[in-house]
């Protein structure tokens, strides 16, 4: 009698308290996130212009319009957006991650002034994206007196105006975004490195591993959870990019720096084509979903193992 009742009693009590806590946030989540998401799905199947009281159902016309615009000689905004998002994604999961990890490794050792460097490298994260966009577009890339041009002028004869060249513009924007991202990644890795068990490192030293082998076989695998987070954050940030592009070029010149979020905004709010904008948003969601599912399935698998 005494053994079973408390357990049963405890189980019953545990059941409703956590759910009660969850009701508030869940309600907000439903209203502010899920609701609009479902509404966007619905809108993507209409030709609503954002103003008229009625929206006509047009099925998958919006999606057809987007995908049929691929492959032209002058790439469409959608084509540019897809390729720019891809470039952004691939760059973000390699460059800031690599540099951030390297910086974290270096600054993790007893380097003089390491806190100063960490703070300085993290500082761009504190600035808001539009501010960074303005700093880079006027201070660095401006063809009349910007930093980049002044530097290039010393070697190159006719330095390009980064934000005006259609092949260079997206890289210029990605560079500015990556500059900001490096600090964040570095801090994450610094925290991760602190959690690496020093006894394991000592053991590897005893086994005669050199610095590279130590990194490759001991440190990096132990950083796996941090790397997962870092990669997911990088992917999500790269797909979400809007502020930088909008402030620096508004997607120009002639759509060359357009990304899906910018395209969605222009279609929905500039061109009064809510349906088309919603369709673009749905495509963006679908792309993000692929990566999120990959991440979640990995994380859930790990949890089950525990």
């Amino acid at each position, binding site marked *: 009698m005494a053994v079973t009742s408390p357990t049963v009693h405890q189980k019953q009590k545990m059941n409703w*308290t956590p759910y009660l806590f969850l009701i508030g946030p869940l309600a907000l989540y439903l209203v502010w996130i899920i609701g609009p998401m479902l509404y966007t799905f619905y809108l993507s199947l209409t030709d609503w212009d954002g103003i008229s009281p009625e929206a006509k159902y047009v099925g998958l016309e919006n999606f057809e319009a987007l995908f049929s615009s691929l492959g032209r000689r*002058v790439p469409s905004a959608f084509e540019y957006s897809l390729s720019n998002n891809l470039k952004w994604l691939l760059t973000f999961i390699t460059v800031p991650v690599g540099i951030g990890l390297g910086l974290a490794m270096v600054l993790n050792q007893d380097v003089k002034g390491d806190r100063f460097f960490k703070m300085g490298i993290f500082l761009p994260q504190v600035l808001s994206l539009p501010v960074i966009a303005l700093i880079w577009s006027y201070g660095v890339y401006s063809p009349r007196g910007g930093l980049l041009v002044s530097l290039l002028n010393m070697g190159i004869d006719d330095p*390009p105006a980064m934000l005006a060249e259609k092949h260079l513009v997206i890289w210029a924007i990605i560079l500015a975004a990556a500059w900001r991202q490096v600090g964040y990644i570095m801090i994450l890795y610094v925290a991760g490195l602190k959690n690496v068990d020093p006894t394991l490192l000592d053991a590897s030293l005893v086994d005669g591993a050199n610095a590279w082998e130590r990194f490759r076989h001991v440190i990096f695998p132990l950083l796996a959870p941090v790397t997962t987070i870092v990669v997911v954050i990088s992917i999500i940030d790269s797909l979400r990019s809007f502020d930088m592009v909008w402030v620096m070029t508004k997607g*120009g*010149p002639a759509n060359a720096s357009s990304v899906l979020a910018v395209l969605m905004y222009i279609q929905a709010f500039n061109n009064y084509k809510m349906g088309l904008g919603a369709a673009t948003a749905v495509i963006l969601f679908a792309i993000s979903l692929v990566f999120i599912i990959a991440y979640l399935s990995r994380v859930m698998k790990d949890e089950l193992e525990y």
Partner: protein
Amino acid sequence: MKNNSKVVIVLLAIVALSLIAACVPAQPAPVTVVETVVVEKEGETITVVETVEVEKIVEVEKEVFKEVSPVAYNSMHGDPEPRRVDEMLVQMFNEQNPDTPVDQSTINHEDFKQAIRAYLVADPAPDVMTWFAGNRARFFIDKGLILDISDVWEEQGWNEDYPKGFRAMSSVDGKQYFLPSSWYWWAIFYRKSIFEEQGITPPETWDELLTTCDTLNEQGIIPITIGTKFRWTAAAWFDYINMRLNGPEFHLNLMLGKESYEDPRVKAVFEKWTELFEHNCFIEDAAAYSWQDALDPLNRGEAAMYLMGQFITDSVAEEVQDDIDFFRFPIIDPDQPIGEDAPTDGYFMSANAKNAEGGKKFLAFMGSKEAQTIMVEELGRLPVHSGVDPGLFNPMQQKGIELIQGADLVVQFYDRDTTPEMADAGMNGMMAFWDDPEAIDDILADLEAVRQEVFAEEE
């Protein structure tokens, strides 16, 4: 056991309280107005015994609170000079009409173009808004989002005081929806001193323009500066070359979607445009600059010309103000009638306006001879009200008026004459052309596809 349920109850209480707090209506807007009036009254009642003062203040607060019905006015005049005058006019109105004070909200020009969509469908919508004439306004009028203000036109006598052309521009199906307030002309503005030094006279024909570019290039001066970051500055060149080459009527029909973008006449415009590239007429990397950024070379004397609206004089450096003059865009085909861009700004009211009466009062003020005269004196814009004293116009304004009076047809501007979606595609096409002139056939084919889709919907 008991502790757990206590915690839960407290938590529920907190949640309930916060929900209630969130539901309390926000303080009404007139608070600031109340404060100013109270201050003035305080000044008057200084000699009264303190206790009485306090009572009076409370009374006054209540009174003013009941009577004030603010007018929400959203303005796009974000640039420093227009903003100063705009706020000056609002203040004048507020002093004359303390019971319907105008609550002004100004955001920058470019962002307003996006924001207006949200304004018009908001509830309550702002009462009065700045906007452009032409298709831009029609787009909303056709959707029933704009208030019919024919009664204000009638009451204020604008049907007589405003020129026919402007009245026609503001009307749809015989009813007035728009209040035009000022217009400005477009022309090629140039530095007089540079022209004098190089012995150049303002070009009147296309060939003369090309020769001018060559002469300036030889001297290391940038012939024409332009900032195409936001695209519409490039559209100006399209407008003018099209009007000079093919006539303003063809241009207008193209804007209205009645002509094809693959018409050889349209391609001819771009071929002429290419001649400007061949003669190195434009500043390099134009797409990296906003139109204001591109003013810098003109200010410094590094560039000579800029095809721009008259509002360029607001932003030109002070030292350079007297050195600026303009000439009409050169003639290409002397047999074609002359068309000019003369965009007209103005105001309209939303159909969902909360304070339609107050809004109409404000409109009546803004459209009056008084307000229009101030706009002329302070901003150098041309007024629509024919009662404004013509002696007020300085030589440049008189020249501008003559320019427009000499035109056979006056159009608004590329992105105001055609629908927003067509304008977006068209301007992107022009930017693509600027970057890669060889791709013009593909660009025009794409634009034609957009035109058919956009204008087919309207039929």
